[in-house]
């Protein structure tokens, strides 16, 4: 059945104007095709473990991306900016993974695209393997493209339907003149085998594969140049549940085998928990909390992280009747064109007080590997009554500048974690 014309896989729908939206009749999922019925070997995995001492391969500091908003007048002026990413700092350890989570519009995908330099950042530095790539020219980026690759969300639209799988995967080798023509095919077959596809299927077209297999093709393409960093933008959210796990485990295999570092951008908190030993939570262009997995999921200190986690249905808990109370967040995320003053989350925050509108909370390190940006940081149900940050910022408890106070700690926006941190209980600096 491999003779399917690219068009027919969608046209074998029965005279179907009233067809239900389900993929039953349209996708290659059901094409009676041996490419789709090839059963790849699967692996099983526990959650990835991180090495806290690994050197950072990517260090991002104060990264900003403002998209201009034009007026609709006769002369189009820039009348504002969408502050998609606004001062984000983080590290990705070599061979490790950082998860970037948040809801739509929080800037996580834009951050991913900035790292791959699909956009040029408005400000900030992107230090990759010792080199700042935030301002590198298009020409200078070419060698970089080998080192940083991207996996996209939609396996249906991110592959060119007119190119065979072999040429999709082999194209980077040709573009970068890495292998002589003769050796490209063996390498493509090797890659197909690595990602669990039949190596004999290199001359087939994307439509002959199912969604999960297409995502494997996308991964093979990203692997072609043996990158050091993969930016995975929602790599499994378009896939069926059973296929999601296949792809996550495949990525884990690849990380183990080739030591690839991942920036894992996703909205699914459970998937991120499984894949990333370290996780950053974003809200309206800023990181509100970043911590190692255990801390972030078991002892989140930011009210947004807490709300986010409580909103995720927990199958195993619910099944044994142990349903947790949800924290209801009212309303919608405000516009990134005109974000709220002070803390961006304050308009929906159950803890918000005066200081939150006046002063933006710094991303403060409060544990060995834990930073949080909240004036009232604390574990769920144990949030302090008075802002913990007031003394540090030289303001009083309502947020007005206090000339008497002298900031006691330097709260920079450095990527990574320091050896000393601010102890919330004692309100002094502490160290391990």
């Amino acid at each position, binding site marked *: 059945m491999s003779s399917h014309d690219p068009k027919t896989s969608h046209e074998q729908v029965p005279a*179907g104007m009233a067809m239900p939206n389900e993929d039953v009749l349209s996708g290659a999922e059901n094409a009676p095709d041996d490419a789709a019925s090839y059963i790849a070997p699967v692996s099983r995995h526990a959650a990835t473990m991180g090495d806290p001492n690994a050197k950072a391969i990517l260090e991002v500091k104060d990264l900003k991306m403002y998209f201009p908003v034009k007026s*609709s007048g006769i002369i189009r002026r820039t009348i504002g900016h969408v502050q998609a990413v606004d001062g984000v700092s983080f590290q990705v350890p070599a061979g490790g993974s950082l998860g970037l989570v948040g809801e739509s519009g929080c800037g996580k995908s834009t951050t991913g695209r900035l790292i791959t330099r699909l956009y040029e950042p408005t400000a900030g530095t992107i230090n990759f393997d010792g080199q700042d790539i935030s301002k590198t020219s298009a020409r200078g980026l070419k060698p970089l493209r080998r080192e940083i690759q991207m996996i996209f969300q939609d396996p249906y639209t991110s592959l060119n339907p007119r190119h065979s799988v072999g040429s999709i995967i082999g194209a980077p080798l040709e573009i970068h003149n890495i292998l002589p023509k003769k050796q490209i095919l063996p390498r493509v077959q090797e890659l197909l085998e690595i990602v669990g596809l039949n190596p004999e299927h290199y001359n087939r077209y994307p439509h002959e594969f199912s969604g999960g297999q297409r995502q494997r093709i996308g991964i093979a393409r990203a692997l072609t140049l043996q990158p050091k960093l993969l930016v995975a933008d929602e790599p499994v959210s378009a896939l069926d549940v059973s296929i999601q796990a296949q792809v996550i485990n495949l990525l884990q295999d690849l990380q183990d085998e080739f030591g690839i570092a991942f920036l894992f951008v996703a909205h699914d908190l459970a998937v991120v928990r499984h894949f990333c030993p370290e996780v950053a939570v974003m809200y309206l262009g800023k990181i509100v909390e970043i911590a190692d997995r255990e801390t972030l999921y078991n002892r989140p200190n930011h009210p947004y992280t807490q709300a986010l986690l409580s909103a995720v249905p927990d199958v195993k808990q619910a099944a044994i009747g142990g349903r947790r109370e949800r924290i209801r967040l009212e309303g919608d995320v405000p516009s990134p064109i005109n974000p709220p003053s002070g803390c961006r989350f304050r308009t929906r925050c159950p803890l918000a007080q005066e200081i939150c509108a006046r002063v933006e909370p710094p991303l403060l390190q409060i544990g060995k590997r834990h930073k949080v940006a909240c004036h009232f940081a604390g574990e769920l149900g144990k949030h302090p009554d008075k802002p913990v940050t007031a003394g540090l910022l030289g303001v009083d408890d309502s947020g007005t500048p206090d000339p008497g106070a002298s900031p006691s700690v330097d709260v920079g926006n450095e990527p990574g974690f320091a050896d000393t941190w601010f102890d919330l209980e004692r309100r002094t600096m502490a160290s391990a």
Partner: protein
Amino acid sequence: MFAYVIRRVFIGVILLIVMSLVTFVLFFASPVDPGRYACGKNCSPAQIEQTNKALGYDKPVIEQWTDFLKGVVVGREYPDDPALRAAAPQLVVECPAPCLGYSVVNSVTVNEELKERFPLSLSLALAALLMWVTGGVLFGVIAAVRKGTIVDRGIVALSLIFYAFPAFFIGLFLLKFVAIKWEIVPVPVYTPIAEGGLGLWLQGLFLPGLTLALLYMAGYVRMTRAFVLESMSEDYVRTARAKGLKSRKVLTKHSMRAALTPLVTMIGLDFAGLMGGAIITETVFNYNGLGKLAVDATVTYDLPTIIGLVLLLGTFVIVANIIVDVLYAVIDPRVRVG
């Protein structure tokens, strides 16, 4: 929206100016001496020189072009050379703004030429438009609703047949058989509304309009059919059905409204194109429209007429585009913002 239109008009004017310059330069880049053509075959070198002076061909191209632009804004007089005008004041031709030039070949200003031909071409294009849009949409929707049946196949096949026949064949067939031999309708003669009223005007436009409409209809049938079918599989059409709406209402209110939006773009462009492009039909029915004028002007190397036509038709395309965009915003609320 208003600001948007202003911006588009502004860009349109710049585009027209550039078009006029390109036409000028192209014209003079050709190996033909325009003065020689304007004057006629048996002119002596002196006569040619005089013609050149009268029409301003003796000046550099750029200067001629600026003179032309000035004429468009404030009008001008012919002959171009002031000495010639002073020598024979009785021969001076007034060409009021917007002056598009003077055609020596036809001894008349270009404005006069266009004014004479324009109503016919516009009427013809309108008549054709009306017929092909009505027919195209109607048959397209029927074909879509009856998809896969004999009705559907019949409509698609028939429209293809008409599309495959050249315009002169359909035109001649309608003229020789329908009008002359079988006398089903009178032989078409163009009569302006002012002279013969609405009835005669329509009568004159029926057959030539139908010729053009049959040609264009094929595309519209197929597009309407495709768009309606596509919109029928949209989620919002399913929603409309899930509400319990009658299928007729689902079709007219939900499906067709979305399906016909892309047609608006096509209509605008096809209409503007038809203004100067109905050459064959005009020739078959011996109608003096803009298309025929364009062919004649090209053959006789009548520069002023050609430039005038280019600008008029260019304006039409630009205006049609602006109207289409505005209509789009009216139809689709999502376009209205920004």
